[in-house]
């Protein structure tokens, strides 16, 4: 063995263990909280980035949030609403930065604004009119409590409108809509997977493969593939599935730059050879929320449901009442959905 220290490399992987250790630490989470991440898997699965991606609804332990100066909150509308309503600004804020998906800029209360930046995820390759992929992976959340059937159909129609029928015929489409959550959310009849599937067949084509998750997960090369996720972001917005497909070469659907008013790009960070996360500042003076979803007095009720659990049927009915009557209208008025 050459004893010259200059030419020697010591390899120790314990450093790598420490780097992502915070992602391992589930000890403070309750069984109920952990169930939530499980029930919405694989969308809620963990991934690593230097921005410390984190799901509050998977166990918002304030002490854990003190461990890092930056957190990228992967959560969707409801958990973010709870977070900004109930998290202790005095305890958590300071110089700490929380990155929130830019679709949810209006959820950030004035007291939190100086501690919040916004993000979105972009692919280096995008598909749409004039740029047709060879393959397409279609994924999404399809049950009546976590997704709106009307929105689902609209989303599929939007996707189809980017391609001609002839083009769609040539694309190899693989779809995966995990639908095993009925034990938590309601009976299987409530989930009604058939109506979701019907809209896919009607608007795209009949020849669609439904591979198992293990097959999709173990494929390493998704170049020339469009990844399309039907997810309005009620529970989780920044999904591990999107990162997985994009990091293996998949692209996204081209989208217009509407609703960009008020955002200023301050940094782009590569998360793989094929996709980035963009970080924005938002000028709250330019665009102000017309109403405050956090004022909903139903929020504590929903928090109770999520934390304690109750009869599944109640969740569905209540959810529709709240989501349908309040936040959804707000979204529509804003032109965000």
């Amino acid at each position, binding site marked *: 063995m050459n004893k010259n220290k200059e030419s020697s490399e010591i*390899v120790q992987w314990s450093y790598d263990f420490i780097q992502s250790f915070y992602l391992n630490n589930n000890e403070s989470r309750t069984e109920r909280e952990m169930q939530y991440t499980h029930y919405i898997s694989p969308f809620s699965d963990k991934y*690593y980035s230097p921005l410390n991606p984190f799901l509050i609804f998977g166990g918002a332990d304030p002490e854990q949030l003190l461990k890092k100066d930056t957190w990228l909150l992967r959560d969707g509308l409801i958990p973010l609403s709870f977070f900004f309503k109930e998290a202790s600004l005095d305890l958590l804020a300071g110089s700490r930065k929380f990155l929130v998906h830019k679709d949810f800029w209006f959820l950030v209360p004035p007291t939190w604004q100086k501690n919040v930046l916004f993000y979105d995820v972009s692919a280096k390759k995008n598909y749409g009119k004039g740029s047709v992929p060879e393959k397409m992976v279609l994924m999404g959340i399809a049950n009546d409590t976590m997704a709106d059937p009307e929105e689902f159909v609209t989303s599929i129609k939007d996707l189809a409108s980017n391609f001609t029928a002839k083009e769609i015929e040539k694309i190899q489409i693989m779809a995966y809509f995990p639908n095993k959550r009925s034990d938590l959310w309601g009976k299987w009849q409530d989930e009604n997977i058939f109506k979701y599937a019907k809209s896919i067949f009607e608007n795209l084509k009949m020849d669609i493969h439904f591979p198992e998750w293990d097959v999709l997960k173990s494929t390493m090369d998704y170049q020339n593939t469009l990844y399309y996720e039907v997810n309005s972001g009620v529970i989780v917005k920044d999904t591990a599935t999107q990162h997985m497909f994009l990091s293996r070469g998949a692209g996204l659907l081209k989208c217009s730059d509407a609703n960009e008013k008020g955002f200023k790009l301050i940094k782009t960070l590569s998360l793989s050879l094929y996709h980035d996360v963009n970080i924005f500042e938002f000028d709250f003076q330019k665009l102000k929320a017309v109403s405050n979803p956090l004022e909903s007095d139903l929020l504590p009720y929903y928090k109770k449901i999520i934390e304690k659990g109750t009869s599944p049927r109640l969740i569905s009915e209540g959810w529709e009442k709240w989501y349908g009557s309040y936040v959804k209208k707000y979204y529509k008025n804003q032109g965000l959905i």
Partner: protein
Amino acid sequence: MKLLVIRSAAESKWGSCKVISPNLHELYRGLSASYQIEWVDLPEDLMKHELGSQQSCVSALVKKIAESRPDRLVFVDHLPPPPTVLAYLSLQMNLKKLPPLVFHIYGDFTYFSREWIYLNDVLSGHPMTFIAASLSQQKMVSGFLNQPLGISKLCFPVNSSEYFFNKEERKKYRNENAIGENDVVVLYSGRISLQKNVDVLIREFLKFKHPVKKTHLWIVGAFDDIGADFLGCESYPGYMFSKIQMQLEDLTEEERQRIKFFGIKKKEELRKIKAASDLFASFSLYHDEDYGMSPAEALSTGLKSLLTDWGGYSSFANMQSWQCDLVEVNIDEYGFALSMNKFQEMLLSICQTPDPDEIRGERAKAFLREFSIEGNIKNLQDILDKKPEAFSGFNWLLEQYGNSLSQNWSRSKLNKFLSPKSKSFYFDVYKNYISKLSQDKNNE
């Protein structure tokens, strides 16, 4: 001789096995006419199939064995795991009535430690042959047996119609990628994974300075997040990319420009990339590095190579017929120590004396004579013709390995038992992966 060869019905999801399996199948098809081969395709996930299908493929296999009366039952692929197939067979027949068994051993052998241990009870004394792809793997598996008998060595062969040296391809690919005639390209191809130590390669590459020659580092392959799960260090998706990205952030623009990531490339382009390069380097310490298909393919294009003296990589060392040297590896009290002098020396020598195309072509041919499909048909025949040894059973070391691996379900703790350091269980098992250490042992 009648062979009943069990193979996987689907293409492996494991990158190297996508190449290894078809090449091994081709090798069997190349056997002389005195070998009659019948193939049986089994689903990768045998358990799921048996539970979910009305037609049992295990029953069909039992029937096939009874009808064909083969002289050897060969397990050629890594999936479905051979011990799992045998466990299912044991529910329907007495395994002692099987013909002699032949297993091609892959890197995932240790993952199935507990399943292999099960065979101790049901197959003790049965004639069996294990075929390891390298000397190191042969030694490691020998270390798991009560008596180190019945283990042969046969490489995972390279398909010489897919990998060879073509000087026109070299010239064209270099031109297309703006590589100057005097520039030197260092290549790594394979998974970009924690234990592959691509970060070490980048560091070493940047240390090299030459007054005249411009050097480039090409990295081909997908980032993965396998981590080092045997020691409980399971990294999350995105971790490896971020780790390398952080390393690149500290570099100057000029340094960054010289390092290129290609992502996944198809075989044909990979051959051109290998032809266009001047040195293949891999400092992998992957715990299942039983062979090294990527270096084998690089050497098939006559590419000079520098590899760690680790696992199957050591089998390629040869500085006469072709050019493959080894970086010394040691396991000390702090972990692995790699002696990196050779990298700097080899790169300097390439800068000073570039290879003429003719010599490179000769090297490629010499390597393929030993490592191609056609070059190994006779070796396989010799193994099959040899009288199989009675299985002596696996020893405590494999049982211990299996038990230790099964404790890794919790991600929040490192497994000290399987941590790379001297005087540890890890050392007892993996010293066989370092040719210098295992030679010393043999000399004692």
